[in-house]
């Protein structure tokens, strides 16, 4: 079964994807980092990073390319990391500007959440953003994420002090929004929460 949604599929990274990933990293709006990075990343660096990945059955992170089903175009990537097995993980997403507002990011996010909750059996998924990234906060909210924490004025970006924001989606909320799935994973908590 492929990681496939209505609009996109999530697949392994390929060498030819790296050009777009470099562009996403070198654009201050899409690079998604606490401190601005200089736009000096190169395709060579990214290819080297990809080639350095070793085979392993023990994976606590992944970056997946987001490919538009209809056209085969690469729209960006979505990732998860910091996996605490059967408990939680953190996701991140970067989508090229031409695909903003097309539903591609939401579809990719929903596919990844389905994988994390239904395949990895996580009980919570988090993401990090900042108070100035209205688009990212809205995208997360659309999948049911809620703001659960912040580092007040923890970022300085585009000349502004911004709050670093943590958003979380717990398993029960995910399944409540997805009546098409039954949650058959036994409850860990005896007392809720």
């Amino acid at each position, binding site marked *: 079964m492929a990681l496939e949604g209505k609009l996109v599929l999530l697949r392994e990274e390929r060498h030819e994807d790296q050009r777009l990933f470099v562009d996403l990293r070198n654009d201050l709006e899409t690079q998604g980092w606490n401190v601005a990075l200089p736009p000096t990343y190169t395709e060579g660096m990214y290819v080297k990073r990809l080639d350095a990945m070793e085979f392993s059955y023990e994976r606590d992170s992944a970056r997946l390319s987001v490919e538009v089903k209809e056209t085969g175009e690469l729209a960006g990537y979505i990732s998860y990391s910091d996996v605490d097995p059967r408990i939680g993980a953190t996701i991140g997403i970067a989508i090229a500007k031409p695909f903003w507002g097309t539903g591609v990011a939401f579809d990719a996010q929903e596919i990844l959440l389905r994988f994390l909750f239904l395949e990895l059996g996580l009980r919570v998924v988090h993401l990090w953003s900042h108070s100035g990234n209205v688009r990212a906060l809205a995208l997360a909210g659309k999948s049911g994420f809620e703001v659960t924490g*912040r580092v*007040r004025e923890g970022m300085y970006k585009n000349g502004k002090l911004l709050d670093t924001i943590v958003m979380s989606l*717990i398993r029960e909320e995910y399944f409540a929004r997805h009546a098409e799935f039954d949650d058959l994973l036994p409850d860990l908590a005896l007392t809720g929460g």
Partner: protein
Amino acid sequence: MPTIRFETDRARLRALEKGDAAALQSYLNEPSIIGRRYIPWKMKDVAPLSLSRVDGIAESWGKEEKSITLGIELRETGDLVGHVGWHWGWDTHCPGAWVVVASSHQRRGIGSEVLTHLLEYLFLDTPAHNVNGWLASWNDAGLAFAQSLGFTVSGRVPRGGIRSGAFFDEVMVDILKPEWLAVKGRS
């Protein structure tokens, strides 16, 4: 140029050495400390630690490039009674901080002395604007301790783990430099 002194009235904050493993092990394995030892993130903070494991932790702390962990040594006796650390992996603008004190030396103001000193260092000698920390939601004493020094709760991130049949949250606390200055002005 003056050297920054990592000392308080009663404690000296010093680098951990190989010979510290036994002292570290004795308080890290106290049942009341387990779960809030602030050992490297990837290690499950649930079980007693062997001496060689503690050696590995101290070595790992020593190798960190964007984090410093110092031992808390009592000036009077030379006893190692805890550790204090801070990291700036994301940004020197918002470092994270933590303090761990052996249960035998808690409630004597040592932790407050040390964290007060650390805040002074971070706000006066580094670019820090926000100093933050994370605590398990069952750690009421830790939260009260942080709040007593001016930290406020800035989040409650669900499901940091499971304990005694219930999920616990990760409570985020932070203090901004202007808030710290106000607290300092009152003290």
